[in-house]
């Protein structure tokens, strides 16, 4: 397949922001709150620190394989079979992640907003939009993210400003009463969910037209997203308290229900739901697009568009199959961060290390 699709550095930074905020804005606050209790905001800050390391690693991988995607690079460095195996694992991971994102939307809609609607109906309609985005390609997804960004920022500012008056600092005390262990446990998920999942962008890096701007845009985007996530976690803990933040499935949605300006402006949680649907939509469509790119590179296809509809059927089926109920789905939060870390950070480290030792024997023209 030819790399005719190009996006610019700013669009790349925006995609990084959308992936970082993505579904995590609604799902994440509960996970570190379960692990670290009222110190979850420290976990979030640690997550940003580790996350910057992860982003530097990814941009180093991106720099080494200029003009080639992650999969091609894996095959060049590790050979056709071992590299192909890693690409297969990446493919399965990307696909299951997209299915899980669709399922998150379905679970959220059926538990919080439309309890009477069957979950399959929501999945099918949501998947239809994602299929369209994947069919239209990367440029279209990037432009959509650009178009909606001011709206996202406006809603975010409104959301935070209206919540600031209800912060209760006493919810944050005492700080670190259980030592560092729980904080680090929380930091695993605050690193993995927003930052390790940026590994999908490794497939997008060759499409950025200005390869010198990659690291800067990547860092800017991830940092912005990380600050937003840390802010949301901080607000969840300091307003809801650790108990409610940990027990609630969607703490930031519960948070939005608390907004009350002069007993007049109330129940604007749909703003948050809109923000989440938007970021999650762009994240899922990028995942699904990257799934097709990986498929096309792995099997040397001439075009990926014919695969979009059948894999859409598979996506809807898989999003129902992956978990029999919402509690089972929530339990994935225990091992999912490790999967993100191993498949994103672990494989990048492996490729970088092997590529470094094989050194100059790899000419850039060797890959397809």
């Amino acid at each position, binding site marked *: 397949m030819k790399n005719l699709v190009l996006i610019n550095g700013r669009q790349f930074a925006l995609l990084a922001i959308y992936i970082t905020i993505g579904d995590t804005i609604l799902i994440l606050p509960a996970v570190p709150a379960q692990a670290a209790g009222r110190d979850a905001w420290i976990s979030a800050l640690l997550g940003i620190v580790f996350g910057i390391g992860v982003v530097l690693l990814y941009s180093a991988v991106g720099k080494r394989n200029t003009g080639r995607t992650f999969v091609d690079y894996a095959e060049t460095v590790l050979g056709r079979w071992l590299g192909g195996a890693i690409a297969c694992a990446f493919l399965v991971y990307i696909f299951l992640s997209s299915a899980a994102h669709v399922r998150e939307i379905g679970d959220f809609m059926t538990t919080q907003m439309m309890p009477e609607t069957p979950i399959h109906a929501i999945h099918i309609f949501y998947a239809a939009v994602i299929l369209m985005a994947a069919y239209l390609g990367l440029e279209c997804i990037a432009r959509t993210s650009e178009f909606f960004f001011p709206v996202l920022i406006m809603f975010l500012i409104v959301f935070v400003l209206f919540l600031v008056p209800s912060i209760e600092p006493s919810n944050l005390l005492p700080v670190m009463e259980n030592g560092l262990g729980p904080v680090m446990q929380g930091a695993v998920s605050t690193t993995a969910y927003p930052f390790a999942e940026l590994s999908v962008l490794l497939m997008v890096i060759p499409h950025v037209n200005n390869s010198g701007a990659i690291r800067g845009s990547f860092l800017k985007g991830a940092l912005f997203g990380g600050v937003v996530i840390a802010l949301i976690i901080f607000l969840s803990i300091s307003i809801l308290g650790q108990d409610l933040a940990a027990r609630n499935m969607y703490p930031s949605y519960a948070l939005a229900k608390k907004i009350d300006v002069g007993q007049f402006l109330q129940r604007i949680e749909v703003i948050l739901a809109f923000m989440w649907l938007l970021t999650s939509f762009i994240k899922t469509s990028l995942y699904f697009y990257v799934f097709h790119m990986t498929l096309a590179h792995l099997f040397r296809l001439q075009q990926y568009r014919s695969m979009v509809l*059948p894999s859409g059927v598979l996506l809807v089926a898989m999003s129902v199959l992956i978990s029999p109920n919402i509690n089972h789905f929530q339990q994935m939060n225990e091992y999912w961060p490790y999967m993100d870390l191993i498949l994103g950070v672990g494989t990048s480290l492996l490729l970088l290390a092997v590529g470094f030792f094989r050194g100059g024997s790899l000419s850039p023209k060797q890959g397809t």
Partner: protein
Amino acid sequence: MAIVGIAAIAACICVLEVPRMWRSRQWKELVLFGFLLALGTGISVGIDLDAGLPNPMDWLAAIFRPIENLAETTFGLRRVNEG
């Protein structure tokens, strides 16, 4: 009833996509297309019939739970609200 719907959707997808691939002789694409569509339709029908399909997430859990336990015992990680 749902099976009829699934079959109809699969047929529509075939009508939409197969002729284009057939004309440009993309046999590899055609095979992969068939595989994905068969897998998706099969799983959909299996879910509809309550056939007790295995859950792929359980396999992932079998791989990654030991890693999680290892990481937690090695680095002394623990949860506040456990139990």
